[in-house]
């Protein structure tokens, strides 16, 4: 079996990887924002949100995936592998994005909050118009990094049969026995995708830091 064939075969899993990563990213970002906002006011709601965040951070992603895929199926809710993976990974990622937003809130809050309030803005308007938008901008580089992380986490979906890159790699290895080629192909795919993306994100981060001064 030629390397070219192996490469093509494995690459056909790329769209699935992207689907899972994208779905998880959207879920993680939205849910993370909700959790971060819920945490802000403190009190019972804040404590509840903080607890959810901690729990999501402490569950092994694979186990959560099993709960969503196998567990729900046994209860009658059958979710196909790809959406199940996106859901599970999104939940896990939400715990991290919630932290990014929280850091954003804290950074923005110090001076700007008082300035906006002294203009007469109510607490929620201040938050809506001043803090959240800026926190969002502040959180963009880590959010982009979390997408890159999800591209790697998507490999877990192979455990429930989603035909992403690693799964297809396993299949073609079983067919061909050429472990070295398969390994090199998969490593190259991930290197060529993640390293340039990560570099680009840090360039963006530095540009943003400079313009925010």
């Amino acid at each position, binding site marked *: 079996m030629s390397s070219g064939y192996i490469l093509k075969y494995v690459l056909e899993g790329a769209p699935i990887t992207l689907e899972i990563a994208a779905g998880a990213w959207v879920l993680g970002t939205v849910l993370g924002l909700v959790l971060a906002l819920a945490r802000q006011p403190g009190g019972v709601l804040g404590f509840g949100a903080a607890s959810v965040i901690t729990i999501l951070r402490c569950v092994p992603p694979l186990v959560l995936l099993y*709960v969503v895929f196998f*567990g729900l199926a046994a209860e009658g809710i059958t979710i196909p592998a790809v959406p199940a993976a996106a859901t599970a990974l999104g939940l896990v990622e939400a715990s991290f994005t919630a932290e990014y937003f929280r850091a954003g809130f804290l950074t923005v809050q110090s001076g700007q909050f008082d300035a906006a309030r002294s203009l007469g803005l109510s607490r929620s308007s201040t938050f809506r118009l001043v803090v959240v938008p800026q926190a969002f901008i502040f959180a963009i580089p880590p959010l982009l990094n979390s997408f890159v992380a999800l591209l790697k986490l998507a490999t*877990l979906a192979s455990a429930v049969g989603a035909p992403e890159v690693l799964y297809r790699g396993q299949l073609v290895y079983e067919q061909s026995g050429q472990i070295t080629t398969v390994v090199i192909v998969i490593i190259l795919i*991930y290197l060529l995708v*993640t390293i340039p993306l990560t570099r680009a994100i840090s360039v963006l981060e530095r540009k943003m830091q400079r313009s925010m001064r």
Partner: protein
Amino acid sequence: MLVEVGTMVGWAQTLWTGFVVTIELSAICSATTVLLASLIAVARIHPRPLVRGLADAYADVARSIPLLALLLFVYYGLGRVAQSYGISAFWLAVFAITVSEAAYLSEVYRAALQAVPAGQQEAAASLGLPWWRMVWLVIVPQAIAPSLPTTVNAVVGIVKGSSLASLIAISEATLAATNLVSETFQPMGVYLTLTLMYLVILIPLSLAGKALEFRFGAIRPADKSGRTRRRSLISVTPEV
């Protein structure tokens, strides 16, 4: 879905054997990861560009490869060779997890080393201390406390990563759960029990990490490319 607590307790007892392996695996990996990450971090601030370059390259590559992929590579690629030497799959898992996690941790350790004020290097250098001694006697001691929170978080990550070892037939907790599911046909209950047991271990660890972060402050890598103000502790010290 309503599962009796009694049943769950019974399952928990079955899963416990798996957890013993999880704890073993995680403990060993934590030690090796901290060690490797420390070495890599010191290498990343070494005066010689070649040493720095190699260490940087390792960190870049190891962070780009998904842990599960690395586990499978090591298992399928080296599995037979390892077996002929009497090395079980357990150690292959240790290797893969260590290599992967140490790359991330070395990033933070490097930032911690670079966060030690430059004046400290200068004072040590002006005494005539060679590079290795300066790093060991003056820089590293001041970088340990700030790195503790992230080290604890790394241990949490290692425990979570250990669950992936179930996919290369290591009899840790997740594999024990999968086996149990195939016996009981109750995936929801079993996996929820498994989840609860992981939470019991990891939530205290995670909270401890937060508490340490509060006490010592968090080290954030200056930026992801690792380019902070001083690329290496070189300008003032002679080499070894």
